[in-house]
């Protein structure tokens, strides 16, 4: 039994036999086969050679080059290798004697030959290694391509295990048979993760070296709630997970039925539940889960997925796609929040000694006006399509806000001069995620239409704790009295100034904080879409009187530990299954 920890990206639990998909551009892990599978694997090698020869012959014929030209020669040489019986025998012998997969045998044999060449001093000869790698890839493509096609014709339930999955691969999965996904690479926001979420297939990614531990046919548990994958679990673990799975499905089913019901407390207070999204596709999940719109549309993906800076059109198309899905429901587009943890884009920004306190987010935009204006133009153009709002992240003082608004105004003027349509009354808001913004909320409120409290950064900056640093991460808690007092201050100031207010940090998706947030006076929550039903269920189970009581009690407490355990107890009484 091997337990691996990764990132949970799509909830649910699945237990099934694994189907391992290797990637031709990565090292193929050594995986064993049973003696009875030898002939199948050997036949796979033969077929791969046959098909590679067919493919090469076609390619060669299609070359518009005279006989004896360099390119024709390369094809001819590769064909000679593929026809070489001793090469094929070397590979099938390896399967026979070592009991390994066709992929591993092909890859190992050809890489061995290639390394023989690289050792030669003569450069002309050592460069032959490139030809051998080329042949390796061609053969692996044949072997893996067939396997990928097989996924389309599955006859039994499987968990797909791979180094990395492309979105198109994931989108092609038959959800009747693909019960779970586990991959070495990927992150929460990788496209494959999003597709898995929208297909409702439990998935865990970023498992690093999982593919080295799994052989095709091994039993695998994918726990998409906790981010755990277990290879070859023992009987007791399987039993335990069958129980979890049953409970989870029952909860899911119950939550599914409340999708159409409003998010109202038992005593009639209406709460607005919005979704946080990163990709246009996710807008569909928001609606599927019963969200009333998008309260936080992160736009960093436009920058992180490409090598070049996105154009105005790239921005516009992404926004328009999202808006098309949402119809007339509101969408809050947050201007780009690059830097610090999202500091992955390009090495041309010299590394900062203290990036979380450095040139990130709105500060970065205010120093890169061309880039900032490009995005603002696209948002303004999209503003005529529906209820679009604009939100600036990480504001720390009024001057920054005024500067950002002035630039927005400039862009509006430019559009006006070019007779391009936009909504001149577009709502402008800011994220409250620094203590300075929270403490000056009353002043900032005069110049904006709404606030959205980003509890993740607000907690980190208030408590001076890096939650990613395991030495201090236990100090990180939004239930800390200091954080809660800031949230209350912001709420009071927003109410006094009569501007809209929402909470869009992770706190809004954690069941134990819901009563407290409602009690403090929050009426709009924006959260990760899959959690919407569960949070709605909590809202529908409480009264404002309960919530006010919880908030009063908590705000009188002085210890994070007491607050946390009090909140857990209170929530457990409302929705015991969620804990």
């Amino acid at each position: 039994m091997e337990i691996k920890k990764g990132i949970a990206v799509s909830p649910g639990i699945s237990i099934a036999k694994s189907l391992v998909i290797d990637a031709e551009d990565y090292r193929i892990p050594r995986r064993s086969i049973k003696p009875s599978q030898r002939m199948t694997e050997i036949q796979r090698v033969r077929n791969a050679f046959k098909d590679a020869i067919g493919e090469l012959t076609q390619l060669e014929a299609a070359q518009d080059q005279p006989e004896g030209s360099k390119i024709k020669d390369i094809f001819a040489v590769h064909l000679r290798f593929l026809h070489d019986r001793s090469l094929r025998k070397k590979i099938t012998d390896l399967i026979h004697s070592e009991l390994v997969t066709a992929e591993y045998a092909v890859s190992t044999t050809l890489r061995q030959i290639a390394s023989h060449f690289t050792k030669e001093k003569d450069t002309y000869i050592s460069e032959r290694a490139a030809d051998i790698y080329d042949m390796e890839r061609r053969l692996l493509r044949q072997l893996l391509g067939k396997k990928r096609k097989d996924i389309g014709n599955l006859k039994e339930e499987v968990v797909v295990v791979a180094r990395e999955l492309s979105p198109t691969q994931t989108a092609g999965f038959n959800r009747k048979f693909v019960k779970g996904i586990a991959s070495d690479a990927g992150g929460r926001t990788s496209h494959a993760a999003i597709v898995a979420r929208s297909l409702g297939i439990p998935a865990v990614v970023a498992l690093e070296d999982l593919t080295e531990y799994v052989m095709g046919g091994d039993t695998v548990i994918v726990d998409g709630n906790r981010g755990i994958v277990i290879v070859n679990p023992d009987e007791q673990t399987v039993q335990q997970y069958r129980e979890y799975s049953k409970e989870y499905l029952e909860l899911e089913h119950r939550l599914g039925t409340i999708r159409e019901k409003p998010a109202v407390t038992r005593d009639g207070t209406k709460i607005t539940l919005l979704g946080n999204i990163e990709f246009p596709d996710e807008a569909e999940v928001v609606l599927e889960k019963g969200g009333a719109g998008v309260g936080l549309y992160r736009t960093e993906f436009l920058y992180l997925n490409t090598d070049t800076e996105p154009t105005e059109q790239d921005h516009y198309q992404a926004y328009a796609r999202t808006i098309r899905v949402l119809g007339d429901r509101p969408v809050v587009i947050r201007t780009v929040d690059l830097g610090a943890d999202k500091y992955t884009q390009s090495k041309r920004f010299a590394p900062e000694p203290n990036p979380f306190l450095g040139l990130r987010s709105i500060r970065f935009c205010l120093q890169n006006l061309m880039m900032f204006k490009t995005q603002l133009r696209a948002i303004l153009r999209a503003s005529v399509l529906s209820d679009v709002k604009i939100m600036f992240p990480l504001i720390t003082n009024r001057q920054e806000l005024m500067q950002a608004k002035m630039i927005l105004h400039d862009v509006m003027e430019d559009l006006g001069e070019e007779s391009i349509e936009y909504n001149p009354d577009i709502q402008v808001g800011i994220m409250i995620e620094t203590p300075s913004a929270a403490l000056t909320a009353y002043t900032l409120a005069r110049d904006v239409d709404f606030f959205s409290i980003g509890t993740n950064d607000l907690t980190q900056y208030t408590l001076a704790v890096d939650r990613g640093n395991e030495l201090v991460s236990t100090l990180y808690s939004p239930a800390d009295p200091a954080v809660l007092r800031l949230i209350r201050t912001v709420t009071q100031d927003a109410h006094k100034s009569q501007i809209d207010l929402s909470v869009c940090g992770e706190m809004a998706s954690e069941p134990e904080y819901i009563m407290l947030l409602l009690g403090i006076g929050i009426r709009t929550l924006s959260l990760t879409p899959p959690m919407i039903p569960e949070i709605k269920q909590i809202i529908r189970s409480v009264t404002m009187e309960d919530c006010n009581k919880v908030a009063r009690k908590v705000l009188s407490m002085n210890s994070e530990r007491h607050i946390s355990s009090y909140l857990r107890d209170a929530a457990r009484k409302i929705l015991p299954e969620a804990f």
Partner: protein
Amino acid sequence: MQAEQDSLGNVVYEAELEIKNTDGLHMRPAMQFVDIANRFDSEISVSNGETNVDGKSIMQISMLAATCGTKLRIKAEGPDAREAINTLRVLVEEKHFDEPEPKK
């Protein structure tokens, strides 16, 4: 060229051939070599003094990694052994794979 008879009565011919083209026995020359070797019924083996390989396998021939000036021992065994050795000698030493020789 040396000739002898093996136990089955097949003729065995042997010759030592020197690689003369500048770039040595790289992929394309290796291909020319095995293409010719495969035209004959005789078994053909090639040795560089350390390794002895099948003269009809491009993988094995290319792995000899014979550079310009290397001397290879070619052995053919079978009904057309003499002609095989002759044809291969022309390819390696006279035509030097239709490639240039080093400038003197």
